[in-house]
């Protein structure tokens, strides 16, 4: 299996999404783009772990997915205007 083109294509995809973080108007659009970036990074980490044959990348991907979910919830609560 040749996993390298898939990783390069995912990197291009992540760059396209990150452009929306810089040009997007308003906080909610930037949060949407950031959440999308986290999803793509998790998928890329799993592919990189299979490519290098290291399980550590996949463990990092699990923890990254859960922590980015917590980050999304906190920033959404901040945009909503609630008190913590």
């Amino acid at each position, binding site marked *: 299996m040749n996993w390298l083109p898939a990783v390069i294509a995912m990197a291009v995809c992540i760059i396209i999404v990150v452009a929306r973080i810089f040009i997007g108007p308003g906080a909610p659009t930037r949060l*949407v783009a950031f*959440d999308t970036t986290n999803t793509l990074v998790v998928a890329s980490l799993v592919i990189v772990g299979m490519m290098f044959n290291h399980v550590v990348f996949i463990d990092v991907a699990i923890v990254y*997915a859960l922590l980015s979910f917590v980050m999304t919830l906190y920033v959404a609560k901040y945009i909503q205007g609630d008190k913590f």
Partner: protein
Amino acid sequence: MAPLNTVSYVFIGIGLFFNFVGAFGLHRFPDMYTRLHAATKCTTFGSIFLILAVIVQSAGIWAVEGTPSPQSIMCIHSVLALVALVVTNATGAHAIARAAHRSGEKPAKAVVDDLEKKEND
């Protein structure tokens, strides 16, 4: 291993296609809610298929090598990563949409907002 390689390449193709559809939809749509719709659904579907390719490949090597294999750990942890991704993406998108609506973000070209009275109840 040749049929499993074919299955993995097909899964990678589907996953990359949907990830690119989501990434371009993030730039093509006019307002935040439609961007959320495009980005979240397409990238979740595409990432599911990319991780499924890894699961199929590592499960094939695991079945050939027998149970004490490093690929068994990779297969099981990829399933865990898939579960974490699927659960957190849907919930996070719901939280983003609700927060944006409560902060007063309007859809582009919106005429009637049916949720406005329900928020005050």
